[in-house]
């Protein structure tokens, strides 16, 4: 039986990818942020997950307004980084895990979460930046990835509660897989940021701190935050935080907070990092 060995949440800011790809991580603007990644990277390196289930939203690259799946899962053998309008990121193709992905897709649908099944797609910064955040710049990514995509661009996105329950179903699906894979669940996006219109540049570190506190200790309450509250308090792109709830739902009710960091600014975003394990799971002494 496969098992969930931990959960990571991270923002997926495109400019972080650019900073890595162009070798700017030591520059004064970026160095303090990348220093905060070190405990996360060390933890993941020692954990050595066999596969990551990575939850992100497509930003008009794999999908467009022509087709808008609320939840989708990537089944392919590999996924090429997308040209998002300014060239492809110079990062390795992402290897999929078709057998696990098909199992998760089938199991989730029968568990009444109607996933859209995706055999061919390219992946954008929403997926590749979190891989860079966790793994740096390897020649090949160290493990295969099962992408789960959530619509947060077209309103209404799924509710936080729906996402939390999808995470719970995801855990059941992982645990019913006959392999022995040790699975790291990664929720991405957020934290507070707004890219559009006159309020562009809005961030709300207090909302974000409270969100992490709730996510860790009272996820049912975090799951009740409404779309309007995200829009108002966390900026129009802060709605991406619903994807952290999928990761949280894949862990047990009681968790151990292994690591937390935030950083302001990364481009337009209050950046958040969070590492959780099931309560009682072996805690990495290095962190």
């Amino acid at each position, binding site marked *: 039986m496969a098992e969930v060995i931990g959960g990571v949440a991270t923002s997926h800011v495109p400019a972080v990818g650019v900073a890595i790809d162009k070798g700017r991580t030591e520059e004064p603007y970026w160095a303090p942020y990348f220093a905060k990644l070190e405990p996360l990277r060390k933890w993941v390196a020692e954990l050595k997950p066999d596969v990551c289930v990575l939850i992100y939203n497509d930003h008009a690259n794999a999908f467009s307004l022509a087709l808008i799946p609320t939840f989708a899962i990537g089944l392919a053998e590999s996924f090429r980084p997308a040209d998002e309008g300014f060239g492809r990121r110079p990062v390795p193709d992402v290897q999929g895990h078709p057998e696990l992905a098909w199992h998760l897709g089938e199991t989730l649908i029968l568990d009444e979460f109607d996933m859209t099944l995706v055999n061919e797609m390219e992946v954008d910064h929403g997926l590749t930046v979190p891989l860079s955040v966790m793994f740096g710049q390897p020649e090949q990514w160290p493990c295969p990835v099962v992408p789960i995509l959530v619509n947060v661009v077209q309103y209404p996105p799924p509710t936080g509660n729906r996402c939390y329950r999808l995470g719970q179903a995801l855990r059941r699906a992982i645990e019913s897989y006959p392999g022995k894979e040790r699975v790291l669940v990664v929720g991405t996006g957020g934290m507070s940021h707004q890219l559009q219109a006159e*309020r*562009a540049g809005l961030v709300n570190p207090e909302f974000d701190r409270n969100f992490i506190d709730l996510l860790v200790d009272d996820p049912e309450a975090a799951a009740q935050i409404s779309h309007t509250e995200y829009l108002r308090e966390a900026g129009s792109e802060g709605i991406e935080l619903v994807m952290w709830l999928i990761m949280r739902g894949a862990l047990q009710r009681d968790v151990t907070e292994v690591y937390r960091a935030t950083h302001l600014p990364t*481009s337009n975003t209050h950046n958040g990092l969070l590492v959780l394990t099931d309560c009682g799971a072996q805690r990495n002494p290095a962190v």
Partner: protein
Amino acid sequence: MTDDQTDPHTSPGYDDIPGTYVFDAKQSRKGYRLNMFCMSLNDPANRDAFRADESGYLKHHNLSPEQADAVLNRQWLRLLELGGNVYYTFKLAACDGMSFQQLGAKQTGVSEADYVAMMVGGGRPIDGNRSRSEPNWTGPNNTRGAKREIEHG
């Protein structure tokens, strides 16, 4: 916490949030062709074709005259008003070589240096920016209406 997301057909308070377009059904229907034009710029050959003949390229995408004008004149707020979504309009900005921070500066009518300085200084604060009813909501520089008039003019 609010319970205002229960009925998607009534306005769940979106209109009260200042300086923000919520990409709902109304905006999405209005902006479909505009956004799909922006989407086409993911293809480098299309970016070259657009740069070579912007007006000619737009003719293939059936934008409204207002949308086409806003594209050609790079009226970034007007594009949102006409149904553009920022992830799509950013593709037009990226085609011009702009970053998201440069687009943020353009949308809010400040220099890139001032915008970056605002972010380094802690970003745009939430206080005063939660609700259009807040007495000190005046927009980044001026009122939303005044800015629109300038852009439309």
